[in-house]
């Protein structure tokens, strides 16, 4: 910009008020990139470099180890139980909070946020105190031969506790912004509760829901603290992937540790990619079709196909 050349009397070609000088922009971008590189990219590279340090063969062998496979299975099982349960809970809670007025609503909101405020280790300890051998219900559970702590149910419970706000938190603002009018319109047009839910409510929040589920899944698979307390670290039985990484690392089995860690890192990368895809699909806060008039043409084709004799 030639700011010095223009005489004061002439209206200078001033830059827009909210654009910083090139130097400032450059410095800010450089700082941000350096930060990202140091704290995000470098660790990622290190994980994969360490995992592949002794070649692909060793990497595969580490992953095929029975204990590693058991850990992967347990993590997948936990996610497979926790994610659907959270979907149901998140939907129900968000629906209640966004669409109805009732006493204790703010209390419910606070309760939903509670897991965010509590350290995961404490969350795990709560379950040990409740269900552990010397916990409140321990003797009763023991008498009936039910094991929760140091077993799979405890791991699932702890993961549920830690991830439970994720879906609800994603959906509440979305549903609040959409209001109740469309559902009222559906009711007046004769739609029953379930019809309204599946035809109107769910399609309107589907991208938010998918987003919440992705986050929930990532957290469920990556959780360490809470699970660590309740798991008991029984190799091949109650070790999840994150716990297995720790065990291997403490045994100086770096290739094994980083191989499993690389799977978790891959999961994060996939999660990020899917999340970006969903956000791009959803086109920001609105339905993606707002942005893409083309969709109209395809749906016409669908119509013609479905109805021509």
């Amino acid at each position, binding site marked *: 910009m030639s700011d010095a050349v223009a005489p004061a009397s002439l209206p200078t070609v001033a830059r827009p008020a909210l654009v910083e000088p090139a130097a400032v922009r450059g410095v800010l971008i450089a700082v941000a990139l350096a930060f990202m590189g140091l704290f995000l990219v470098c660790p990622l590279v290190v994980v994969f470099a360490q995992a592949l340090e002794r070649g692909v063969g060793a990497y595969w062998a580490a992953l095929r180890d029975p204990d590693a496979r058991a850990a992967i299975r347990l993590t997948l099982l936990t996610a497979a139980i926790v994610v659907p349960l959270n979907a149901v809970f998140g939907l129900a809670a968000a629906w209640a909070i966004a669409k109805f007025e009732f006493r204790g609503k703010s209390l419910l909101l606070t309760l939903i946020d509670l897991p965010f405020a509590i350290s995961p280790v404490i969350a795990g300890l709560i379950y040990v105190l409740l269900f552990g051998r010397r916990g409140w219900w321990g003797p009763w559970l023991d008498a009936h031969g039910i094991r929760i702590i140091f077993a799979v149910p405890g791991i699932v419970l702890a993961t549920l506790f830690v991830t439970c706000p994720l879906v609800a938190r994603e959906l509440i603002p979305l549903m609040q912004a959409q209001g109740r009018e*469309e559902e009222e319109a559906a*009711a007046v047009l*004769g739609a029953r509760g379930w019809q309204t839910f599946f*035809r109107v409510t769910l*399609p309107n929040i589907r991208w938010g829901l998918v987003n919440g589920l992705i986050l929930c899944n990532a957290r469920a698979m990556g959780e360490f603290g809470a699970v660590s307390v309740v798991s008991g670290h029984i190799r091949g039985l109650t070790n999840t992937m994150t716990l297995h990484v720790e065990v291997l690392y403490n045994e100086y089995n770096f290739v094994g540790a980083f191989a499993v860690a690389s799977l978790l890192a891959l999961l994060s990368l996939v999660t990020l990619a899917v999340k970006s895809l969903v956000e791009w699909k959803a086109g920001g806060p609105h339905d993606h079709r*707002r942005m893409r008039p083309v969709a*109209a043409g395809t749906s*016409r084709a669908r119509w013609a196909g479905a109805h021509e004799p």
Partner: protein
Amino acid sequence: MSIEVRNVTKTFGSFTALRDVSLHVDTGELVALLGPSGSGKTTLLRILAGLEVPDCGSIFFYGEDAATRRVQDRRVGFVFQHYALFRHMTVFENVAFGLRVMPRRVRPSRREIRARVQRLLELVQLEWLADRYPAQLSGGQRQRVALARALAVEPKVLLLDEPFGALDAKVRQELRQWLRRLHNEIHVTGVLVTHDQEEALEVADRVVVMNAGRIEQTGTPEEVFHRPANEFVLNFLGRVNVFHGRAEGSKAFFGTLAMDYPDGPATGSLELRGFVRPHDLDLDTVSGDDTLLEGTIVRVHAAAPQVKIEVLSTAGETIHVEMSQERYRAAGWRRGQRVYVRPREIRVFANDRHGGGAVCTVPR
């Protein structure tokens, strides 16, 4: 389908939206609920639809108590103020929704649904937009889609909440006339909520003026406009000038103007407030027996079918006068001119709210 509202009261927390409201709507009639915001008109409409439940009182559709029917079974068409179109569905799917969610045994075949939606879209002149999404439509188009969607289930009653509220003036005007024609064609019983008096007077067979949860007056557009029941109705249905006067015996005095006033007090005098619409005021260059007050023209607004003139009285009040272009040009009024304001008639209400009105006609 006739609608009967009996003694309906509705409160939201500490706010009373409706106080003991009763109303009858005849089959095939188009009734406008007119009132300022917070007057309870939308609440009444939502109660009719079944979207709100009254605290007490009852609603009868065709003599049948509507409380026994859920929203889904009332067969009312409801057009929401902000249309509430299903944003993830095409125009076609929006209109078809009411048919698709019918129980299987009464649901029309796919082919029939298609034909019916097509017909409705033709009715609202939008068949060329069937594949668009609501976000791709203009306000007026969305409004008509909302109407077509409401009509798809062949409702016996059509309820419209501020149907033209969010549209610009020209589109409003067109849609208003179009709605009137449509109503004449399909002859459904209709209730329309609006805060726009012009809209209510132009479209409706009958106007229900509401205020603070009560019905102030019910009548044809002519009745409520020319014979307002009280101050509120008079004020709400257009601009009005207020003059202070007094009644003594059977005479009323406004300034130097004396008129017959049969309801005056036998002894002493009574403060009166007289109301005159701007088009019931004349201007003169000389004072006479019937002069209400003296003033100066401070503003002339002639770029309209009716010329609007503002007069500042010697007492410092602003008086609004309206006259035809012909009379304005004949007299040649201009700013700064000294004028004498003369009413053709003055409307006086007794002090209590529902006291009814007396019209004092100025002797000429």
